[in-house]
């Protein structure tokens, strides 16, 4: 399937009394999912050329990492892709563990997988709610956020924060799960598949939704790979690539799940891919919950991982280690790593470079939304202005990750 092309009679020329105009959409706009500015060159209502202008949320996080110890940086990663904070945490923490060469215990890995999948479901729920809201279906927004509240309750029970949990640490987890968590999680997981079917009854059979999403914003598989798309945007064009299968991490090779793909490459395929992904995440989360065994949650590395509170209060060496780790940080061997994970939006990669001290020398996050948004001009050329809104929704961009 080729992407939409501009018919040959429309071309960009500078004729003042023409039907072409340049408008600026954003940065304050209800449908741009954050502070994104698009310069649209329109011919009537058809988009001839679009240029995204980003940087309105640039926070200088990568510079902040260089001034903070490794454990302090985890807090900053929450605020990057704020719909998938546990995924950001995981990527950063695993890059640090790769540099240090730590062995993570089994229970910690299973809990990490469980929370990553719950977070993926929560992120897709926000995507669905806001995407449908932009297209005009307001009910779905409230239904999705109702489900999301349940997930946020679970995350808050374990870590203390709804939106910025910072639950993972280099070497394991912050704390063990609270009592009764497995039951609550099981309750949510049992209740979730009928909710996804409910979303399908609300949207998938709706003729208006289908007309607004099918055939819009096509991108072919070769173009998608060339433009660096990843995650559901790439799988919506027919490429079965998932980092959890390609470069498995944290024990993902032991779980049984499918990789949903759709062949068309338009907004509808990306929608269907994400809906099916929610069901797959549910499958993985159920398997993880069944696999949960009691055990340690932190790696055996006393110079890196904080000791238990009880041990700290009674043993001198634990107290000393605690003090040194908190006050001075731990030294990480010099080197560089690039660790990619499959976040809810695509390939989230962390490039971490250390010079041997307690603070990193360079931390770079390869944000999937950054790369996905760069393909927007390709998808939006030849579409109507109203379709641009649908395309941005289907790309699932989060400006915090783009601008860092």
């Amino acid at each position, binding site marked *: 399937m080729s992407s939409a092309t501009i018919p040959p009679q429309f071309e960009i020329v500078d004729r003042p009394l023409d039907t072409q105009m340049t408008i600026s959409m954003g940065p304050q706009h209800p449908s741009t999912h954050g502070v994104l500015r698009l310069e649209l060159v329109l011919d009537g209502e058809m988009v001839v050329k679009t240029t995204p202008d*980003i*940087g309105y949320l*640039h926070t*200088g996080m*990568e*510079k*902040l990492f260089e*001034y903070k110890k490794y454990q302090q940086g985890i807090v900053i990663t929450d605020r990057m892709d704020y719909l998938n904070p546990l995924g950001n945490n995981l990527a950063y923490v695993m890059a640090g563990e*790769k*540099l240090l*060469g730590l062995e993570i215990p089994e229970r910690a890995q299973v809990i990490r997988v469980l929370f990553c999948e719950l977070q993926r479901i929560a992120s897709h729920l926000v995507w669905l709610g806001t995407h449908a809201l932009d297209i005009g279906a307001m009910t779905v927004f409230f239904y999705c956020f109702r489900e999301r509240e349940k997930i946020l309750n679970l995350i808050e029970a374990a870590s203390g924060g709804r939106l910025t949990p910072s639950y993972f640490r280099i070497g394991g987890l912050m704390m063990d799960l609270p009592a009764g968590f497995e039951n609550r999680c099981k309750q949510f997981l049992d209740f979730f598949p009928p909710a996804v079917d409910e979303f399908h009854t609300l949207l998938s059979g709706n003729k208006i939704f289908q007309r607004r999403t099918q055939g819009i914003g096509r991108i072919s598989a070769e173009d998608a*790979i*060339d*433009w*660096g798309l990843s995650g559901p945007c790439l799988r919506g064009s027919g*490429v079965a*690539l998932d980092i959890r299968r*390609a*470069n498995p991490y944290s024990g993902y090779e032991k779980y049984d799940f499918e990789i949903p793909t759709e062949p068309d490459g338009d907004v509808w395929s990306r929608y269907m891919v994400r809906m099916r992904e929610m069901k797959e995440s549910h499958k993985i989360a159920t398997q993880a919950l069944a696999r949960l065994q009691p055990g340690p949650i932190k790696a055996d590395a006393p110079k890196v991982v904080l000791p238990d509170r009880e041990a700290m209060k009674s043993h001198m060496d634990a107290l000393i280690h605690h003090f040194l780790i908190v006050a001075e940080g731990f030294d990480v061997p*010099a*080197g*560089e*790593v*690039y660790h*990619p994970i499959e976040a809810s939006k695509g*390939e989230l*990669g962390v*490039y971490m*470079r250390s*010079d041997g001290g307690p603070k990193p*020398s*360079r931390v*770079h996050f*390869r944000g999937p939304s*950054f*790369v996905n948004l*760069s*393909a927007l001009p390709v998808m939006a050329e030849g579409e109507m202005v109203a379709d641009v809104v649908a395309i941005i929704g289907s790309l699932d961009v989060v400006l915090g990750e783009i*601008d*860092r």
Partner: protein
Amino acid sequence: MTSEAENIEQTPSPLVAALQREHPEWIAEVIIAFGETTIVVPREHIVAACSFLKTWPEGRFDFLADICGADRGVEEEPRFEVNYHLFSTTKYHRLRLKVVLNEEDTHVASVTGVWRTANWHERETFDLFGVIFDGHPDLRRILLPDDWQGHALRKDFPLRGYEPYSLK
């Protein structure tokens, strides 16, 4: 960074060995550490190396994951490096290419002709480090405001910037 002695001890992967047979002039140094392979490429060969690696049957690196700049330190020589992270969607292997640049001459050729996704990554590296990519179709600032002075992620740029914000 691993020392030269460790480089000779570890056997390079078959991929790097094959590349060394075909084009030895592209490989200035091979670093194998933490399970990853890094090839330091002299900057005049980067475009040729990238386009070769993209179509080479042994490599098939059709996916450019990331271009990442780094500043080694104000006193270091060479000061800047540009890392290209390559990935193959069919063979699932990864490779890092590194180009090192001196402070006085921060020009390197652009690889937007090889992978179109390099466009925004190179703009970001230019914006934050000041590395100039020759042949880039539209090299301008992307994250910082257009009238910003300086390059923010360089080590000599202070964390808090030079002046607080005021409306005037």
